[in-house]
């Protein structure tokens, strides 16, 4: 039995559901079967001691919009790519910028930042004073390093 706790609606009058990380896949499957065929957005929020992952689900047919929330303390969350295709790039983006590891994602690598970037910019403890330089290697792929003269 999946534990889905309904929370009071926010300022935008959307229904909010909170599920445990272990129940996420089962809960999402049940939402998908209820007609929520469009995963609009995946957001990671750094709450300092834990990371909150927010899913905005939408049913195109019924025009209903709900919010599903879960949280994690060790940065890992099960991937929902098996349910919605659009989760693929969204999860890659959240991995890239927030450092959430989506278990079971087929191709979890950086999407906006170049390979080798150190740190996750949207984390609250990210050091903005450190400058990193983007270089290109001989096959045309970008990579980041702290040395401006490095690279091709």
């Amino acid at each position: 039995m999946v534990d889905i706790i309904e929370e009071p609606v926010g300022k935008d009058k959307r229904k909010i559901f909170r599920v445990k990380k272990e129940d996420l896949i089962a809960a999402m499957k049940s939402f998908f079967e209820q007609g929520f065929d469009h995963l609009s957005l995946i957001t990671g929020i750094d709450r300092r001691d834990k990371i909150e992952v927010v899913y905005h689900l939408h049913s195109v047919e019924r025009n209903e919009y709900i919010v599903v929330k879960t949280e994690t303390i060790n940065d890992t969350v099960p991937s929902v790519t098996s349910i919605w295709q659009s989760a693929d790039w969204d999860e890659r983006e959240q991995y890239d910028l927030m450092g959430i590891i989506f278990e079971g994602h087929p191709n979890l690598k950086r999407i906006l930042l170049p390979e080798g970037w150190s740190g996750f910019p949207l984390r609250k403890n990210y050091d903005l004073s450190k400058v990193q330089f983007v270089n290109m290697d001989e096959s045309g792929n970008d990579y980041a390093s702290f040395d401006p003269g490095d690279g091709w």
Partner: protein
Amino acid sequence: MEISEPTNKYVELNMGPQHPSTHGVLRLKLLLDGETVKKVEPIIGYLHRNAEKICELDYYCDSLIYFDRMDYVNSLSMEAGYLEAAEKLLGIEPPERAKWIRTIMAELSRIASHLVWAGAYGLDMGMLTPFFYVFDLREKLLDIFTEASGSRLLTNYMSIGGVYQDFNEKIIFMIREFLETFPKKLEEVFNLFVKNDIFISRTKGIGILEKDVAISYGVTGPMLRGSGVEYDVRKAEPYLMYDKVNFDIPVSYSKDCLGRFLVRYEEMRQSLKIVRQALDKIPEGPYFNPKAKKSLMIRLRGDGEVYARTESSKGEFGVYIVGDGSVKPYRVRVRSPTFKNLSVLREIGKDVMIADLVAISGSIDLVFGEVDR
């Protein structure tokens, strides 16, 4: 010297990031079998500024300019999208006149965006002529934006609690003049496209996007309506004054590039219809909420969380703001429609010719300020 047989059947090719047909800085990694594309992988991030992080470091009122710079050909719709979320979070309601002004400006901006797209799409298809006609038409709109805000492209016209300055008689006259002259000229440009055999044969039946694939990939906007789904945020969840005006949602059931072209063309005409009604209905009154006047603006505090979605010219543009009771947002997340629309290229760009891939990627309406944010 012995020439050995090639061991690999497929050739890997990079298209972009400086390729003229990729609309900015899109890099496509192609796996080719002859001239047929077997696999396509879009590589993005060349224009990444991390606007979400910058917004976290700024006051609520200051973040607006970064939204201008996301979709720079449609900046007024972007501003309306951000303010929809920020005003709900801060609890500030703009006066009715400001809402009507925003509706008019967002619709004019949508027309400008579709015009740029049509011109650039013509260039992709090897037609140079429509580009000049279209940019001439767009210049009239930019004149209106300049008159209202003082700036052509990155307008920064709206602000929390209203708009920067009221519509004067000159702007209303310019818009009315535009409404009168535009439909005929648009028809002329439209004929340049659809009466051209090459354009038709390069777009008809190319890039078929099925309905369920589109929804699963999160595709919205003219691309989704081009696949036969009647879905528009302006109707589904009306914001600003869209529930007080009368307009239709154009839908194409052909699911191809030509369908998307026709949807955008009809959308421009519907936008004109909205602007015409809005000009008649716009009431007199204040254009700014005094609760958010300039000296108080940086002291506005937001608590709780809001997700607001609006229909930009590319699709569902969503802004999710989480506040923690301070003068700066705790987390800002942007749902950019083109980011999702581009991800479907992996699906519809498979098993096509390279020349068709240009037609397909052009029909997505890519603006890289928004994809990479």
